[in-house]
C-alpha cells in the first residue's frame, strides 16, 4: 500500500511532463491524416473551384481503375526489391572485402561511403546531366571515343537506371552497417573454422552470413521504409516517364496533386499509400522481431 502511493505520483508526473509532447505529436500526425481522409471523399480540384461537394467513393474508383495505378504499384515494388537486392548483395560483398587488410583501406572505405552524404536531388542531377546525358554526358563521350553509339539510359531503360542511381545512394549505408557487423565477428571462430579446413566460401556461407543476418534485417527494414517513397530521383531524372514507365506510387500521388491539381484524387492515393505502407510495416516488424529474437 505504502509502495503504490509513492510510485503513483511519479507516474502521473511522468505523464504530465510527457503529455504536451505526445499531444503535439498526435495532432501533428492525426490532423493531416484526417484531412487527407476527408479530401479523399470530396470533389476538390484546385483549378476548377466550381467542382465541389461530396464525391463518395469516386476518387477511389477512378484511381483504382486507372491502369497507371497498377503500373505505379508494380514500379514501386520493382524499385524496392531491385535496390534492396543490389545494396544488400553488394553491401555484404563489399563489407567482407573491406574487412580484409589491404593497402589504402582507410581511403577506400571513405570513398565507398561518400555517396551516402550526397543529397538525392544533387545525385540525381549529377547522374542525369553529368554522367548519363546522351549528348553532353561523360558516359556518352566515353562510348563515342571508342566508336560506339551511347545508349540513352533514362529514355530506354528508365526504371533500371533509376534503380541504379538509388542503389548507388543506398549501397554505402548497407556497407556501413554490414561492415560494422562483420568486424564484430569473433576472430577466434574464423580461426577455428580455418583450422578445420573451411575455405573462404565455406567460411562466408556458414559463419559470416549467419552472423550478418540481423544486420541484414535492419538494413532491409530501414531501406524499405525509404525506398517506398522515392521521389526526388524520379522527379529530377525522368519525371515519371516516358509515359508512366518510371512512375512509382509517390510520384503518381504527386502528379495527381500538383500536375493535375486533383487534390481529391491525390488524397485517395495518399490513403491507399498509407494502407500499403502499414501492411508492409506490419510484415517487416514481424519478420524483424522473429529474426532479432532468434
Amino acid at each position, binding site marked *: 500500500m505504502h509502495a503504490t502511493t509513492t510510485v503513483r505520483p511519479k507516474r502521473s508526473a511522468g505523464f504530465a511532463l510527457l503529455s504536451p509532447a505526445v499531444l503535439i505529436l498526435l495532432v501533428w500526425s492525426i490532423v493531416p491524416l484526417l484531412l487527407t481522409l476527408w479530401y479523399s471523399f470530396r470533389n476538390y480540384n*484546385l483549378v476548377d473551384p466550381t467542382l465541389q461537394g461530396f464525391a463518395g467513393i469516386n476518387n477511389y474508383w477512378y484511381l483504382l481503375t486507372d491502369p497507371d495505378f497498377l503500373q505505379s504499384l508494380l514500379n514501386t515494388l520493382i524499385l524496392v526489391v531491385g535496390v534492396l537486392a543490389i545494396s544488400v548483395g553488394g553491401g555484404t560483398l563489399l563489407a567482407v572485402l573491406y574487412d580484409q587488410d589491404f593497402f589504402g583501406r582507410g581511403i577506400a572505405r571513405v570513398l565507398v561511403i561518400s555517396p551516402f552524404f550526397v543529397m538525392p536531388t544533387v545525385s540525381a542531377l549529377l547522374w542525369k546531366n553529368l554522367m548519363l546525358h546522351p549528348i553532353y554526358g561523360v558516359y556518352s563521350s566515353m562510348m563515342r571515343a571508342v566508336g560506339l553509339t551511347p545508349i540513352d539510359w533514362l529514355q530506354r531503360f528508365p526504371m533500371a537506371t533509376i534503380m541504379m542511381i538509388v542503389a548507388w545512394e543506398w549501397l554505402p549505408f548497407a556497407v556501413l552497417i554490414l561492415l560494422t557487423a562483420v568486424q564484430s565477428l569473433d576472430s577466434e571462430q574464423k580461426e577455428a573454422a580455418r583450422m578445420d579446413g573451411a575455405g573462404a566460401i565455406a567460411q562466408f556461407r556458414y559463419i559470416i552470413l549467419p552472423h550478418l543476418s540481423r544486420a541484414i534485417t535492419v538494413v532491409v527494414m530501414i531501406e524499405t521504409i525509404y525506398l517506398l517513397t522515392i521521389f526526388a530521383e524520379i522527379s529530377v531524372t*525522368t519525371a515519371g*516517364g516516358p509515359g508512366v514507365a518510371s512512375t512509382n506510387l509517390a510520384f503518381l500521388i504527386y502528379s495527381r496533386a500538383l500536375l493535375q491539381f486533383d487534390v481529391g484524387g491525390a488524397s485517395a492515393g495518399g490513403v491507399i499509400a498509407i494502407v500499403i505502407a502499414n501492411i508492409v510495416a506490419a510484415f517487416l516488424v514481424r519478420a524483424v522481431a522473429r529474426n532479432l529474437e532468434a
Partner: protein
Amino acid sequence: MGTCLAAAHAESELTIATVNNGDMIIMRQLSSEFEKTHPGIHLKWVTLEENVLRQRVTTDIATGAGQFDIMTIGNYEVPIWAKQKWLAELHPAADYDMQDILPAVRQGLSVNGQIYALPFYAESVMTYYRTDLFKKAGLTMPESPTYDEIRGFADKITDKSNQVYGICLRGKPGWGENMAYVTSLVNTFGGQWFGMGWKPLIDSPAWKAAINWYVSALREDGPPGATSNGFNENLALFASGHCGMWIDSTVAGGLLFDPKQSQVADKVGFAPSPKGAYGKGPTWLWSWNLAIPASSKHTEDAQTFITWATSKEYVKLVAERKGWVAVPAGTRASTYKTPEYQKAAPFASFVQHAIETADPNGQTAQPRPYGGAQFVGIPQFQALGTQVGQTIAATLSGQVTVDQALASAQSSVTRTMRQSGYSH
C-alpha cells in the same frame, strides 16, 4: 502620418514568380534600373523552370496562399483565372499606350473588356533551319513547307556520327511543353482535342497520322534523349549546332540570331510552321504575361512594376543594353516599326505576321466547343495535357505503339472529362 505612409511604402517588397527563359533573365538583370528609379519598391525574384513555375503559381493562387505579388502566366491562364476572380484588374496609365499592343495578344488578356495581365513577350510558331547544312545537302527550304517535305529534308541532313540531327522537336512531357507543339501539329493534320459535346477525338486517323509523323521523325532524325527536351533544351541544342531544323516558338529567333548566345547565328534560316494534310487550323499563340494575384497586398506597386517591364521604355532599355535583337518580341507594334529592330532581327515582320494569323479561335477540321490554338481553353487542360503528354512521350522511347498510346490517351481523357462533369 505622411511620413508614416512613406516609411511603410519604403518597405514594400514585391515577390515576382517568373520562368527561366532568356528574356525573363534579362528582365531580372535590368530590374535594378527599376529599383533605382523607384526607391520605395524592392524586388524579390523566384525564377523557375516552366513546369515548376506553373505548379507553384497555380497552387499559390488557387489556395489563396498569397506568396507572390506578381506572377508570370500565359494567355491560357489569364481568362480562366480572371473569371474565377483570382486576378486583380489592371488600369495602366494613358501613356502606357495599350493600343500599341498587337490586337491578337491584347484580346487574350481581356475578359469583358477589362484587362487582367500585361504581355511581356508573345510568340507563334516557325521553322528554324541551318542554311549551311541545307546548302551542303543541295536543299532549298520552300516558302511554305509541308510536313512531308520537312521529313525528307531531315533524313538528308542527319549526320549522327557528327552529332548533327535533322530535326529537333519538343519531347518533354507537359501541356505547355510537348503538347503545345503536338496540338498545333495535330491541328494542321486535321485533328483536334474535342468534337461538339466534348467528345474526345484523340484516337482519330488525323491524330494517328500526326503522331506517326512526329515519332518517326524524332526516332530516325532526332537527337537522343528527346523525351527530356523542352523549349530551353532544344534551344541549347540548336544554338550549339546539333539541330538541322527546329519547329518551335518564334521567340527563339531573338536568341538564335544573337551571336552572343548562339554559335550558329549567321547560319539560321526561317520558314513558316509546316502544313499537314488539313493545311489550315489554328497554329500557336502564346504570350507570357505579368499579372497580379487578387491576394497581393501591394497591388499598386506591382502594377507600377509590370507597366514598367512591358513598356516601350523597357524595350528601349533592353535595346540599349543587350542590342535590338534581344528585345522582348511579339507584343508591341512600335517595336516592329523600329528600323533598328527590323535590321537586327530579319525575322521581325515574319513573326508579327505569324502572331497576327495564329488565330486561337480559328476553324479546326470539325466544329469544336473550345478556344485556343496550341491548348484547350478549359481549366482541366493542364491535367489532360500533362497526362496525354506523358503518353505521347512513351511512344518516342518505343515502349508503346502510336495506336496503343492514342487509345490509352482517348480513354484517360474520357475518364477525366467524365470525372469533371463535362460529359456523362
